C-alpha cells in the first residue's frame, strides 16, 4: 500500500496529510505529543521579513463548528526562523513548506529569496495579506495583482511555489487559473473566510480586531466545492484546506481532486488527530484494497 505522492519537484510526500500553517506554531509543542516524522509535510507559522506582534487579545473565539481568529500573523520573522526553528524541524526528515507573506511586493520577494535554503522544500504564499500600497486590498483578491506577485516570486526562488488562495471576494477559479498561468506549482485551497463575532451583552465585537477568519468543519462543504470546481479547470496539484477533521474528510477531498490536505482547526481541538487521520486513511485503503493514494485523487463517480 502506497500513500506517497508527488506535489512538485523536490516535494515528495510520504502521505497526503500536512498540518495547516498557523495552528502548529513551529512544531515544538506537537513534537512533545507525537512523532512529527509521521506527517506528510510540516508547515510552520506564516513568516514575514521582520518579527510581528500580531493583533491585541482577544484574538480567538469559537463559532458554530469552528472558530474565528485574528492572530494577525504574529511571528518571529524569517531570519529568527531560519536560525532558531528550522534546524529543529529538519530533524524529522519530512518535507518542510515555509508559509510566508509580505505587505508589499518587495517584502514577498525578499522573504522568498531568504527562504530559498537547504531544508525548505517549498514555499506557500499566503496572499490574504493586505497590500499596503493598494489601500489594504488583499493581494489575492485581484487576478492581475496575484499573477504579478506569483511571477515575481517565482523569479527569485528555485523552490516550488504553492499559492494559498483566499476563498472570498473574487472568483476562486479565476484566481486559481491566474496563479497557474503565472507559474504556481500547486495551489492550497483555501484560507480562512472573512468573519466576525459580536457579544450581544457588551454590544462590542468579540475580537479586539473586530474581524477575523473563520476556519473549522463549518467551512468544509464550501472548501470541498472549491476543490471540485478548481480541479476541473487547472492542471497543477491542489492541496485542500478547510475543516478537515477525519480520514473520511480526507477521502472526500481526494475524490474531489485534491492531491493532499492540511489539517488546522481540528488539531487545536484534538492534538492527536493527525495520527488518527493518517492511521484511518491506511485502514480505509487496506479495507478497500486500494493500492495507491493516487487511485483516489479526482476519482469521484457519477
Amino acid at each position, binding site marked *: 500500500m502506497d500513500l506517497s505522492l508527488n506535489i512538485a519537484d523536490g516535494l515528495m510526500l510520504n502521505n497526503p496529510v500536512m498540518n495547516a500553517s*498557523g*495552528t*502548529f*506554531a513551529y512544531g515544538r*509543542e*506537537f513534537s*512533545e*505529543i507525537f512523532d512529527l516524522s509521521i506527517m506528510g509535510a510540516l508547515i510552520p*507559522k506564516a513568516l514575514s521579513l521582520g518579527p510581528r*506582534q*500580531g493583533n*491585541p*487579545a*482577544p*484574538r*480567538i*473565539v*469559537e*463559532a*458554530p*463548528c*469552528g*472558530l474565528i*481568529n485574528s*492572530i494577525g500573523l*504574529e511571528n518571529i520573522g524569517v531570519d529568527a526562523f531560519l536560525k532558531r526553528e528550522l534546524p529543529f524541524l529538519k530533524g524529522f526528515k519530512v518535507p518542510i513548506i515555509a508559509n510566508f507573506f509580505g505587505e508589499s511586493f518587495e517584502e514577498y520577494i525578499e522573504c522568498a529569496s531568504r527562504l530559498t535554503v537547504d531544508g525548505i522544500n517549498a514555499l506557500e504564499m499566503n496572499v490574504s495579506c493586505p497590500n499596503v500600497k493598494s489601500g489594504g486590498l488583499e493581494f489575492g483578491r485581484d487576478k492581475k495583482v496575484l499573477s504579478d506577485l506569483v511571477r515575481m516570486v517565482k523569479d527569485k526562488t528555485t523552490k516550488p511555489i504553492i499559492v494559498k488562495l483566499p476563498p472570498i471576494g473574487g472568483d476562486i477559479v479565476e484566481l486559481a487559473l491566474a496563479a497557474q498561468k503565472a507559474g504556481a506549482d500547486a495551489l492550497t485551497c483555501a484560507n480562512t473566510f472573512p468573519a466576525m463575532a459580536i457579544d450581544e451583552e457588551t454590544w462590542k465585537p468579540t475580537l479586539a480586531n473586530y474581524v477575523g477568519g473563520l476556519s*473549522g*468543519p463549518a467551512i468544509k462543504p464550501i472548501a470541498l466545492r472549491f476543490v471540485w470546481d478548481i480541479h476541473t479547470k487547472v492542471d497543477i496539484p491542489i492541496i485542500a484546506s478547510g475543516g478537515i*477533521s477525519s480520514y473520511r474528510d480526507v477521502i472526500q477531498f481526494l475524490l474531489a481532486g485534491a492531491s493532499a490536505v492540511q489539517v488546522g*482547526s481540528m*488539531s*487545536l*481541538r*484534538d*492534538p*492527536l488527530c493527525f495520527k488518527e487521520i493518517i492511521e484511518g486513511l491506511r485502514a480505509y485503503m487496506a479495507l478497500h484494497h486500494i493500492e495507491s493514494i493516487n487511485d483516489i485523487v479526482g476519482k469521484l463517480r457519477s
Partner: protein
Amino acid sequence: MIDTNCHILENRPVAVNTFMLVLEYKKKIDWWPGQFVMLRLTEALDPFLRRPFSILDLGDNRLEILYRIRGRATNMLSRMGKGENLKVLGPLGKGFSMPRDNEEIIYVAGGIGLPPVLALARVLKRGHLILGAKTFREIPMLDRIKDIDGIEIALATEDGSIGEKGTVIPRFEKLVEGFGPGCMVYACGPTPMLKRVSKVSIENGVMCEVSMEERMGCGFGVCHGCTVNTLDGNRLVCKDGPCFDASKIIWRT
C-alpha cells in the same frame, strides 16, 4: 501532557451556578497548582473548542474541577451526569512558583478564581487565604475550605452576607502592609481584582503571582490566541502561564 477519556463520577452543585466535577482519571501524572486541563465535552463538533479549567485536585484516580456556569459549554457541562464521557487534555501550563522559605503567604481569590489558589493553599498548608464573592450563596464548599490545615481564612462579600462587607482589597492591604516585602502573594479572580492586587503588591515591594484568563484556541501553545502583553513582549497564557509575575503584566484598559 496527555489526552485521555474520563468518566464523570460526580457533577453536583456546590454553590449558586457552581459545580464540583469529579472525573475518573486513570493515568498517573505529575501536576502543580495553577495548572489546568482542556475539557472536550462531546465528540460532536459543536461546541468545537475545548474549555480550560484549573485543576483543583488530581490523584487517586480522581480529577477534581470546580466550575461556574458562564456560557454555552459550562451550561452543557452542568447538565451532564454520572457515567458520561469527557476528554481531558492536560496538565497544561505553568503553575504557581514555589514560595521562598519562611515567607508569609497571602492567597487572594475572587469568585470562581478560587480553584487554583485553593489548590495551592492545600498543597503548601500555610498562609492566609482571602476569599471574595458577591454573596454567601456563591461560596462553594465553605466547610472544606475552612478546614485546610495551616491556612487562615478571611471572607469578604459584596453584600456583607458573610465576612467583611465589600471587596477582598481592604483586608488584603492590611495583611500586605503588616507582612511587608517578605511575603508572597498568589491571586486569581476577575481582572479588576487582579489589577488592584498587583498594584498593592508592587507598591509594597511584594512578589505577586496572578493566574490570568484569556480565550483559548488550543491550550498548549500552538494557536497563539491567548496572548497576554508583558514587559517581555507577547506571552501565551496557556504555555508561558497561566501564572505570571504580576509586575510583568501590561494590563489591557
